[in-house]
């Protein structure tokens, strides 16, 4: 009986395991191997060991892209989480048109990234067509170049990415807030705790599993940012002057514009390592102290 059930269990598990082995794990290991070769798609790969990595670490463009990627992460993640939490915290108390407002926040998450990026791209244009600059002009603030500037472009794109992901984070935060038993709050209020103290001593600590999930999820999202950047800068991908280019876009260009597959694989391995370290670090920092 037991063996039979075990057989069933493994029978069902075999399908996803096989799938993952063929579709995920095998290509992953293949990428590690390719990163040590000079494969250019047309000729058989030749082993060149760490030459790709040495080239990568000497490439000033890589360090610029590296910095950009971490800017998206370090600025984007906290801002988006604080914003999402604040909105969720207050939205949780709103009864008036609650579902409607929640749906509004969630809408951008459902919209295609490419379509949103193009709309924002036009928002950011200089006058006469850019709506943001039109508004700025009306209230007497000088025109801003936004995505045409090496200083503002990255943040301009980051705003759209934060906005796009906000809906999802709000929903998850609200689910987390709802999961905290009301009895804790009642007890706290009886004991005379203020709202601020309740937030700090009860809500935030009990929300930790949700927060950990969102921090990791959102960090990986920002580290892999691509759609927004690519679609908002199609004429000069990752520009101007590479100031918005994230690592994923660099990998894409190396692989599918220059066809330097080995070099692109090396960049992929670096991205993989970064993702791994960041995720492990966050899990470790936000772990339960027992």
């Amino acid at each position: 009986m037991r063996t039979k059930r075990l057989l069933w269990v493994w029978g069902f598990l075999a399908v996803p395991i096989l799938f993952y082995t063929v579709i995920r794990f095998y290509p992953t290991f293949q990428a590690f191997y390719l990163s040590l070769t000079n494969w250019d798609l047309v000729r058989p790969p030749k082993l060149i060991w760490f030459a790709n990595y040495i080239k990568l670490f000497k490439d000033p463009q890589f360090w610029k892209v590296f910095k950009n990627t971490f800017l998206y992460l370090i600025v984007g993640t906290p801002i988006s989480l604080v914003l999402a939490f604040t909105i969720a915290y207050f939205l949780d108390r709103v009864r008036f048109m609650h579902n409607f407002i929640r749906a509004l926040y969630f809408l951008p998450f459902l919209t295609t990234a490419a379509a949103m990026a193009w709309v924002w791209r036009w928002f950011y244009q200089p006058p006469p067509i850019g709506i943001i600059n039109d508004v700025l002009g009306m209230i007497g603030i000088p025109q801003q170049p936004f995505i045409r500037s090496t200083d503002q472009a990255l943040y301009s794109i980051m705003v759209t990415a934060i906005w796009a992901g906000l809906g999802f984070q709000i929903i998850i935060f609200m689910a987390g807030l709802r999961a905290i038993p009301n009895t804790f709050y009642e007890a706290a209020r009886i004991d005379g705790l203020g709202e601020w103290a309740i937030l700090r001593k009860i809500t935030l600590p009990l929300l930790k599993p949700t927060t950990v999930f969102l921090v990791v999820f959102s960090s990986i999202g920002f580290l892999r940012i691509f759609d927004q950047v690519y679609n908002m800068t199609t004429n000069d991908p990752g520009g101007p002057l590479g100031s918005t280019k994230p690592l994923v876009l660099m990998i894409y260009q190396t692989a599918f514009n220059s066809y330097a597959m080995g070099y692109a694989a090396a960049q992929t391995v670096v991205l993989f390592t970064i993702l791994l370290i960041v995720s492990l670090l966050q899990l470790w920092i936000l772990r339960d102290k027992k």
Partner: protein
Amino acid sequence: MRKATLFAGLIAGFSTFAFNAAQAVEIEYWQYVFDTRVKAMDQLIAEFQKANPDITVKQVTFPYADYQTRVIAANMSGNAPDVMQLFYGWLDKFAAGGILQPLPKDAFPAEKIEKDFFPIVSAMKRDGEYYGLPTAVRSLALFYNKKLFTEAGLDPNNPPKTLDEFVDAAQKIAKHDNAGNITVAGSTLDMGGQDHQWWREVLIRQFGGEPYTDNDSKVAYNNEAGLKALEFYTSLQMEKKIGQAGFMDEGQAAFRAGKAGMTIDGTFRLGSFRTIKDFEWGVTELPANAEGVRSNYASYFANGISAKSSGEKLEAAKKFLTYITSPEAMDIWLKTVGELPALRSAALTDENLKDPIYGPFLKGLEYAQTTLFKDEQAQRQNAIDMVNRVLLEGQSVKESLEQAAEAEQEIIDAAQP
């Protein structure tokens, strides 16, 4: 007796085999998805099959972004198409990968190609062998908005002929608001569009230099000519204020919207501009310099024969390639896609030369250059960055040029097969 039966059987076997073969040679033709190109090719295939009932041609298309990868992957797995379209700039890669075979000399003798086609087909030649032939070619010209010309007091039937006239007309058309923002551009400035080609193959030559030497493998613009060309280009925005990079997002968008007096673009833009209803536009040759020197950039997609094609498929492929590079096919292509015939005889007809739209593009073909890009995207990006460093970061023209020349040489060296 038994021998005789066997023999008869053999003969019968052979003849049915031969019969079947004559009945059904199917060859595959690959190109990327672009509505009018696919339609034109459907029409060409239909015509070809009518004349050659024993051959069927199957057209297979892929999105442009995937196209190269698909061809290369198909070649590795032995499923390459018999005839395929390729951008002239991919030839080094495709030849190195053993994807193409040299065009068979019996059907496509080199002397005949060189006599009949525009000289830019030489970009498909390696070690004396041609690897492909285009149906159609594209060149650049100056589009201008007749309405804005009239409004600025310029003659809409007398577009600028020289760079000085170009600047002069653009300055008259350009309008700025009180804060100095441009509201109507005299001319679009869009390095991400065709301006990088204009700078590379036209302006540098007009200022007395050449962009590359040694079959375009050595950067040669880091000198007086390159400097003057870049100074001229960046001064259009910085001093003469005839336009603004990024104005209306893209140059072609600004022109379409009637917010730019002039724009430099290619034949491939005709389809899009033909739908403009708000104003009349005209086309003229790219402006000459003061000494009358003109240049142009031409490019094309060629059709090559797969290295794997042999026997009767190769014969069919030869016939098909001959047909799609015939004057008849070029005429269909011109009418459907709007790209210029690659054969001189088909292109330089009186009718075409007198055509107010095709005429200037065709004249451009006579003196056009074709850059042998080694890594087109990276080289284009390098030119965009060179201009942006001056426009956005205030780097000096000289330093930016130096940096660009050095970086481009690295790109070229890294891409050498």
